[in-house]
């Protein structure tokens, strides 16, 4: 008799234990599912994370200020351009969009408002010589690079990208070219470069860096893949190439700029009466 009682009690206990176990497992599973769902919801509300630097703070003020500065003091022929509209078109191209999905068409309204003609024989293209070429054109006003046009002037040194969720702009990070090619910055410069090449006429200059190991001319650079293809053979008569070396190579007029930073280098001696 007692044996039977003990076995039935043991069975009851086992059943109870199993039920409790099942209950615990179910609760844990439900909790996990809820937490996971919440977690996913939070991620979709968050900013996307990228490896490049985020949108420049006060982007609107900087771009607007540069636009007005350009049409008022740099190139007053463009004084009738509407900078407010230009900014709005630029913003519309990337705000609230996934920054890996930008196309040249997104920037077409901006291009229509901000493009302007460029005087002949002044266009200077560059590849891998950014710093040098801009120091050159800043001091010598015979040449214009893309960054001397309105589109280039506004965006030079500035970064920007959107984000699908509010506030629509990502100030923390933006995709690098290595993460995705169709990011707002890269597509902007592609669009601007295309315009710059299409507007070029007469004698066109190119400054290449002859001191890079990978070679002065790369067909997949913006110059090689966009600008050179958009030069209009009916408008452009000659292409002059300046192959720049680091100091220690052939002296060139632009090498004077390099010498300005290193005047005591052996290649920078001047033949003048008025040297100290």
């Amino acid at each position: 008799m007692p044996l039977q009682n003990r076995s039935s009690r043991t069975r009851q206990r086992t059943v109870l234990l199993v039920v409790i176990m099942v209950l615990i497992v179910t609760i844990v599973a439900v909790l996990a599912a809820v937490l996971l769902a919440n977690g996913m919801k939070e991620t979709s509300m968050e900013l996307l994370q990228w490896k490049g630097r985020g949108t420049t703070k006060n982007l609107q003020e900087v771009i607007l200020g540069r636009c007005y500065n350009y049409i008022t003091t740099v190139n007053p022929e463009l004084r009738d351009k509407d900078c407010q509209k230009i900014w709005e078109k630029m913003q519309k191209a990337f705000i609230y969009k996934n920054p890996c999905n930008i196309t040249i068409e997104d920037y077409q309204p901006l291009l229509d408002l901000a493009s302007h003609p460029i005087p002949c024989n002044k266009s200077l293209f560059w590849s891998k010589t950014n710093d040098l070429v801009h120091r050159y054109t800043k001091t010598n006003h015979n040449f214009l690079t893309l960054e001397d046009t309105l589109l280039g002037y506004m965006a030079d040194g500035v970064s920007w990208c959107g984000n699908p969720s509010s506030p629509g702009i990502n100030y923390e990070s933006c995709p690098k070219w290595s993460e995705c090619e169709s990011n707002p910055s890269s597509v902007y410069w592609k669009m601007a470069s295309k315009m710059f090449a299409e507007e070029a006429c007469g004698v066109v200059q190119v400054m290449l860096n002859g001191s890079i190991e990978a070679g002065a001319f790369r067909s997949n650079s913006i110059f090689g893949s966009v600008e050179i293809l958009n030069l209009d053979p009916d408008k452009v008569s000659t292409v002059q190439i300046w192959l720049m070396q680091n100091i220690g190579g052939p002296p060139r007029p632009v090498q004077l700029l390099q010498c300005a930073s290193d005047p005591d280098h052996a290649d920078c001696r001047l033949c003048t009466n008025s040297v100290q």
Partner: protein
Amino acid sequence: MMKSFFLSLLVGLLFSKDYVKPTEIDGKKKWKGEGTTSNLESIVIGRCYEYIRIVNPSVGEKNCTEIWEAFKKAFINKDPCNILPSDYELFINLSLHTIPPNKSLFWENNHLLVTSYSDRTRRYMPLCDTLIGSFGDFLNWCGQANDTGFNYDSCPNTEECENNAVESFWKIASITYAKQSSGVIYIMLNGSAIGGAYPVKGFFADYEVPNFQKDRISRIEIWVMDDIGGPDLDSCGRGSVQILEERLKTMGYDITCIDNYKSVLLLKCLDYLNHSDCSIVSSAPSTQRGLVSPARGGSWSRLIYMIFVAFKRSVLANFST
């Protein structure tokens, strides 16, 4: 006769009043100087943010709208001939930031050269490359009494009245800039300027030199730059430069003076490549690669004509080293 005398006197007075007081056009006074730069607010606020976000972020967080309001307060709704440097005090306090030692560059008669050479704080930080300076550089502004707006038609120039908005701005900006400068001080003068490289009456002489902080300055270096192909009217130890050197020595400073400082001269030479003052010494002869014409027809062959322009040494010579 007395009648005609009084009549002519009256006419004379009327005309002289007209000469002293500018004629009014549409209720706005017509001054001799250029009016306020259009879109001034957008340009200035844009420059302010550009400075603190891109040019010199070490300046830290600044409220550009607040600074703009303080700037405006100095001259808006006031007689444009009665603006004093002290009116800009709040503006100065809000936009002040430190200037790194050995970076100060003072100048006279070579604004564009200084801007090019300093390269937006990369080499030096002249007044125009500070936050305060960027508010006013190449811009113009003035207000009017009993009106909260800018005068876009005209502004008084220095001849009409010295205490105008722009003049007073640069006075206080110069004073402030000089007070904050430390380490080695650099001064760039124009040796071809008519009237002398060192104007004895000017912003530099009247507002900057008197405000040098003796205990924070190690020494002073003067560069006297002549225009390429221009006259050598003043140079170290001569003319007005000598006056400046004496003045600074009397104040107790250690002075160096350099004629046509090479680094700046090389930059000037960019626009005068073929000038005899600008030929770079080189050991190898110059060569030119001939025209390369590929076997492609039509307009493309014109495009693909590539002219390698070697100015002194050949590309071949470079390969052989």
